[in-house]
């Protein structure tokens, strides 16, 4: 009844596969996030950006899903970035150690530049 409204979509920009996440990131997000990841990986993505939109609600079950993505990213030799997190969730991502495995950018533009700089 009070299930999440999360919309997940994918697009590509300057060689970066962007997964846009709008809404709540909780246990109900698992299928949507994993299949978006599988899709861009199937298309050969090497650089992946999880692009949030100042989401108001990300809980520990949602973070567990993202850690699962990091596992896959490491296995597949991809590079992961995260952008668009509020200050609060940037802090949370650092708290759980995600910041060690994914570069945290303020916004999409900064992330695209960051990926480009890392490539050259």
């Amino acid at each position: 009844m009070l299930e999440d409204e999360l919309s997940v979509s994918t697009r590509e920009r300057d060689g970066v596969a962007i997964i846009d996440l709008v809404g709540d990131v909780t246990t109900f997000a698992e299928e949507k996030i994993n299949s978006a990841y599988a899709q861009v990986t199937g298309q050969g993505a090497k650089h992946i950006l999880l692009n949030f939109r100042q989401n108001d609600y990300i809980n520990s079950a949602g973070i567990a899903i993202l850690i699962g993505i990091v596992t896959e990213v490491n296995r597949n030799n991809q590079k992961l970035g995260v952008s668009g997190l509020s200050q609060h969730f940037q802090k949370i991502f650092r708290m759980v150690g995600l910041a060690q495995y994914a570069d945290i950018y303020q916004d999409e533009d900064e992330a695209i530049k960051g990926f480009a700089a890392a490539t050259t």
Partner: protein
Amino acid sequence: MTSHPSMELSFPSELGYEKVAREAVAAFARRLGCDRERVEDLKTALGEACINAIEHGNGRTPGLRVEVSCFVADDRLEIDVHDRGLKRYEASGTVAGIDLKLRGLAPLRGMGLMMIAQLVDEAGFTESSDGGNHFRLVLYFRKI
């Protein structure tokens, strides 16, 4: 604390209700003068405590309710999250860090209590004889 609760909230053990609890308690804390980032911290901590009560303490049994009680004192806001204790909380040693999780040596879940501990000033299960789990969160008011 022996005072009467100021605001109480109760809801069925269905995931999703923790979102309403987050927002209700946030509104309360804001009205008590907590600043924005403190309120964000409280929302995340309280949401995790409610999910634990829903999932673990009440085993996602919709008929069992979770009760959130707020107590206000001069210097602090105390919140008690109460479930029916279908499963009693048992401390389980150390919390696995992200490295163990990534190496497949620990489950991906299991970060809620650790997050709560870092987000509020005090947190933990309290003793009670009513058969349920009581989880207590405390936020001290910072004089600005």
